[in-house]
């Protein structure tokens, strides 16, 4: 878990540098160019989220299955191999050795130790799974997440088979099929953690057993499997692919309606638990789900996607969800595991300050990305013949706002993490 938190700091730090190099590439190209900073940032983000999610999972697993506190061999293999590989990946980046595919920008043979490590995690999980007394919804979500991660991870590497590279379109489609579903798989793990926390905080076991809850679980699984086509609407694929993606994506309006319906209940619940740090983060995540879902639903309509695809609106969506939702839930889960709520008020004050600073700056951050993206999207249709530099002039202004708010985001997280690390040393 400590390692995952270090990854979080690395993400923020490289993100900061990447955004500066965006504004001033001439300068950064001499020292540490964007094509090095971006992989460092994005991989650190990925490993923060996956590493954070799995470390929470390993902890909660013990509570579900009544296993002892001792780590099994499989768990240790997973943790150590994972950490070593991530360090090696960063070494490769620092020597400018890349694999050159989006998000997994390291040389592909490094996927092998990651795969072995993941298989070890699966062994550890299914051992506990066999011992579990019953299967509330969060156990389902964790199991589904772990299995689908394996599938998408393998699929992500299918391009090693030459047949998949005989057509550039096939390459793009299969790559985004796997990327798109992979996000869904770690979301299952993370949302599972959030549900588990809700059950423990409120003491109401029934939340994880209602029919509606299961209904929405299957809806989310269906989306994980079939909605990824919205990443590649503009790619000349078979048209049934686009139809399926559009149709399935639109079922997410049901989530939207459900959120609106349960708004009042949430407000009552909030009154009861708002003093808890864990709960605070969960609520922040819910609010960000709402905003990001709205954006995602709009972007999933091809006619709108035409303007947002390939612009910073996509980045707003990516970072809005990874920071606003995934990171907030992980912060909640970790505060529960590390018992941050039981620390002295003096320590908790840092978390409160950091919390408000990061939420406020994230709003500015997110909005500036959306504006930057829309400007680029509309300008490239309105002025198809100007040079790229001219196209970007007004966009860069908003990217400056982004950098500035990103600095505050970093500050906010550092304040919170100061306390988290203190709690980690204690635990």
């Amino acid at each position: 878990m400590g390692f995952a938190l270090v990854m979080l700091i690395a993400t923020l730090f490289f993100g900061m540098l990447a955004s500066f190099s965006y504004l001033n590439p001439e300068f950064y190209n001499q020292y540490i160019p964007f094509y090095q900073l971006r992989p460092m940032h994005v991989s650190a983000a990925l490993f923060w989220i996956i590493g954070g999610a799995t470390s929470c999972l390993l902890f909660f697993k013990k509570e579900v299955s009544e296993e002892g506190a001792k780590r099994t061999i499989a768990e240790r293999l997973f943790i150590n191999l994972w950490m070593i590989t991530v360090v090696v990946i960063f070494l490769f980046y620092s020597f400018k050795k890349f694999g050159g595919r989006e998000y997994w920008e390291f040389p592909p043979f490094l996927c092998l130790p990651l795969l072995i490590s993941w298989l070890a995690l699966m062994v550890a999980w299914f051992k506990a799974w066999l011992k579990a007394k019953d299967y509330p919804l969060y156990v389902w979500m964790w199991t589904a997440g772990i299995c689908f991660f394996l599938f998408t991870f393998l699929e992500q590497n299918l391009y090693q088979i030459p047949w998949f590279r005989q057509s550039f379109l096939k390459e793009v489609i299969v790559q985004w099929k796997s990327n798109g579903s992979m996000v869904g798989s770690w979301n299952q793990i993370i949302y599972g953690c959030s549900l588990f926390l809700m059950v423990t905080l409120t003491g109401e076991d029934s939340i994880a057993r209602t029919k509606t809850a299961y209904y929405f679980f299957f809806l989310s699984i269906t989306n994980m499997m079939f909605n990824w086509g919205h990443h590649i609407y503009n790619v000349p694929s078979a048209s049934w692919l686009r139809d399926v993606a559009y149709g399935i994506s639109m079922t997410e309006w049901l989530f939207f309606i459900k959120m609106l319906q349960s708004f009042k209940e949430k407000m009552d619940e909030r009154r009861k638990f708002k003093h808890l740090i864990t709960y605070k983060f969960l609520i922040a995540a819910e609010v960000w789900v709402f905003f990001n879902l709205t954006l995602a639903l709009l972007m999933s309509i091809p006619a709108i996607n035409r303007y947002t695809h390939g612009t910073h609106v996509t980045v707003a969506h990516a970072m809005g969800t990874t920071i606003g939702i995934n990171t907030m839930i992980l912060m909640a889960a970790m505060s529960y595991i590390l018992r941050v709520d039981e620390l002295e008020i003096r320590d908790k004050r840092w978390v409160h300050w950091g919390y408000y600073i990061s939420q406020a700056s994230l709003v500015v951050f997110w909005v500036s990305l959306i504006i930057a993206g829309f400007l680029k999207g509309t300008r490239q249709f309105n002025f198809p013949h100007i040079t790229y530099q001219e196209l970007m002039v007004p966009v860069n202004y908003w990217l400056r706002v982004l950098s500035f708010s990103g600095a505050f985001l970093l500050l906010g997280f550092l304040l919170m993490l100061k306390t988290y690390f203190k709690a980690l040393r204690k635990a």
Partner: protein
Amino acid sequence: MLHTDARHGGFLIFYRFLTFFLQDLSKIFTILTILFMLFSIAIYKNGNLEPKHLPSSKIMAGWKTWQDKNCQSCHQLFGLGGYLGPDLTNSVTEKGKPYLKVFVQYGTARMPNFKLKEQEADEVIEFLAWVDSSGKSRVPAEAVEWTGNYKLQER
């Protein structure tokens, strides 16, 4: 109970999985997974339109350079990739090979100079030309239907 017994024999573990998959919820899950697998195979086989021609070894070499130098961190193909530089999907048709080659060989103030050899630069351009031949990245306004969906031209 079963969960203690299960430790002792492969058969009991198998039995436990079996009973699990006979539950209602598991049935839904299994059906969805099977559908997903069929869908995946359909995508691999028929998801894309066939390319105009297969990639030559020159194109493959250019593709490798594209990946080794991580060009995608700044450039997009079909709108996917990093956003510091422009989308290059159709740059060969729009700007022509000689124009692009200057960028690839020497870089600019904003784009680093990768010191590619003449041959490597040519290969990258060939790769970009091949990508270009697979379709248009920007969707024309006429393609948007009343449903909000696209109807892209099928070659």
